[in-house]
């Protein structure tokens, strides 16, 4: 078997059995990066030397019996909004164009402890604000299924790198769909864990009450294995939760008999592409045939999720991004008159258009006189949305629906109308508002040859039910890939 065709768990097993060395795996993936980057541009930074050095160190530990975890020796790509000690971390923004962190984020440290080889940092929408990876200051990433289309975003580089074989798995972050939507567009598996599952320490904040780190990978087994490594309680993140049920791989069971699956009727209305609709409903049918109890219901409030999200996320972003002031790190303008002029010029030159748009909106909704009408109102609607999900999960184990209304749009079609782009987040965004886990996996290919994503949503800390349902569906669906690759 070609090394690049292996899943992360499959490669680790092959390394353990001495069929492949960590160096061979790292060299194979670096060669793939070299060959494909000109086409897809998944990475902002590739650390070739560092990766080969790590490969040697990890191999020694495996040989000495110090490392024997399910992902030991597997090369991984990290979204460029997670700090990596000694490695450029740009958030795909000009304002952090030269930022080299002095520490690593907790999720990255957890992977390294488990024997991961860090290949580099993946491209993203600037500060994770966007749905196409086109707002990056370092060029657009292209969809490996068809380079005329976007990979989705904001974790577009991570999703594309997995799809293109430029890594074996990747970390992304999800504030309103930024793991699930690119996973859907690139035909890979992505999981946004329950808020508080994975430490946000070292994740450069966008919307702190919504941000969560999670895996992008080739299959559900990889997803469960990665989650076992990154879901830890961390005292450095006060929203990190103490948790016991982190044995996610125990949920890799091909059985959905009696699993109660709810299909929100409101997710299948106007705006949903008929091909996406058919593929998602077909997946529900497959689960029903395997013994799941599938029924439709009214979730309600779906149309209010986007305005709620953009109010809260913009408000938090305007506060979080105040730290970029040209003093401690990052870009500083060349000519200025005094301190305040320096702040303003550095920020105005350093941030891109979408980031400025959200900072402006956030500053407005938090400003005196508008705070109650906009920000507090959004927090009240958030409570209603959470309640609607609580009621749904009293009846169902899993909610099933599409990830996005369409498959990947063409490059250059989305940014001209921000509001239209925001509407593409309609099925993913409420999951972040309610703090829930959501999993995206491929369930079909449309007539343009682009992958279609299925979304499974669970109640808080019920990732295992998602993994079990996804695993059972994956078994029935069979291997997934481009027709020309088969």
């Amino acid at each position: 078997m070609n090394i690049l065709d292996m899943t992360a768990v499959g490669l680790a097993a092959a390394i353990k059995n001495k069929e492949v060395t960590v160096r061979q795996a790292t060299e194979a993936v670096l060669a793939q990066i070299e060959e494909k980057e000109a086409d897809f541009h998944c990475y902002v930074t590739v650390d070739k030397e560092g990766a080969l050095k790590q490969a040697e160190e990890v191999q020694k530990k495996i040989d000495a019996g110090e490392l024997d975890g399910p992902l030991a020796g597997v090369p991984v790509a990290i979204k460029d909004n997670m700090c990596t000690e000694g490695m450029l971390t740009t958030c795909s923004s000009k304002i952090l164009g030269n930022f080299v962190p002095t520490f690593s984020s907790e999720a990255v440290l957890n992977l390294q402890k488990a024997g991961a080889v860090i290949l580099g940092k993946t491209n993203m929408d600037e500060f994770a604000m966007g749905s196409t990876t086109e707002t990056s200051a370092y060029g657009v990433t292209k969809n490996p299924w068809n380079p005329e289309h976007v990979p989705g975003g904001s974790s577009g580089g991570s999703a594309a790198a997995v799809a293109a074989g430029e890594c074996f798995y990747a970390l992304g972050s999800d504030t309103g769909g930024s793991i699930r939507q690119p996973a859907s567009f690139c035909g890979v598996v992505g999981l946004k864990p329950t808020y508080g599952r994975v430490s946000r320490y070292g994740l450069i904040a966008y919307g702190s009450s919504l941000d969560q780190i999670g895996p992008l990978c080739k299959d559900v087994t990889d997803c469960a294995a990665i989650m076992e490594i990154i879901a830890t309680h961390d005292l450095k993140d006060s929203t990190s939760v103490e948790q016991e049920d982190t044995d996610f791989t125990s949920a890799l069971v091909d059985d959905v008999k009696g699993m109660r699956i709810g299909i929100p009727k409101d997710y299948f209305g106007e705006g949903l592409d008929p091909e996406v609709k058919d593929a998602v409903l077909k997946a529900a049918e497959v689960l029903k045939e395997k013994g799941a109890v599938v029924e439709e219901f009214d979730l309600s409030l779906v149309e209010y999720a986007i305005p709620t999200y953009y109010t809260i996320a913009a408000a938090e972003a305007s506060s979080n991004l105040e730290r970029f002031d040209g003093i401690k790190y990052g870009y500083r303008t060349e000519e200025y008159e005094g301190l305040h002029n320096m702040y303003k010029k550095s920020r105005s030159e350093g941030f891109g258009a979408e980031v400025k748009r959200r900072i402006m909106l956030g500053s407005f909704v938090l400003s005196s006189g508008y705070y109650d009408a906009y920000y507090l109102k959004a927090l009240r609607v958030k409570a209603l949305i959470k309640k609607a999900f609580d009621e749904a999960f009293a009846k169902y184990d899993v909610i099933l629906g599409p990830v996005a209304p369409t498959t990947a749009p063409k490059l250059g079609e989305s940014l001209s109308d921000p509001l239209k782009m925001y509407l593409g987040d309609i099925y993913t965004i409420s999951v972040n508002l309610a703090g829930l886990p959501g999993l995206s996996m491929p369930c079909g290919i449309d007539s343009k040859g682009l992958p279609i994503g299925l979304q499974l949503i669970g109640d808080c800390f019920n990732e295992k039910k998602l993994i079990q349902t996804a695993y059972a569906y994956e078994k029935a669906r069979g291997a997934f890939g481009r027709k020309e690759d088969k």
Partner: protein
Amino acid sequence: MANIISDETIEYVGILAKLELSGEEKEQAKKDMGSMLDYIDKLGELDTEGVEPMSHVFPVKNVFREDVVTNGDMREEILKNAPGEKNGMFAVPRTFE
């Protein structure tokens, strides 16, 4: 468009956001913010009387830990990221005249 954003509002928000927008950017910002607010106004359709604003989905209380230093002296590495440095400190433009 129901929400008309005035020049004064954009100036004021620019001060809060510490952003200096060009004339063209200001016009665009007025348009963008107006249409976003029109959209957000949709939330007004919902009766939220008596609903507590939810800032956090789980009941989180203050989280305490011992204040113990775990990292070493990283002054040099940290200052390497600073646009201005002087005598082992961050250099900033003159603040008082």
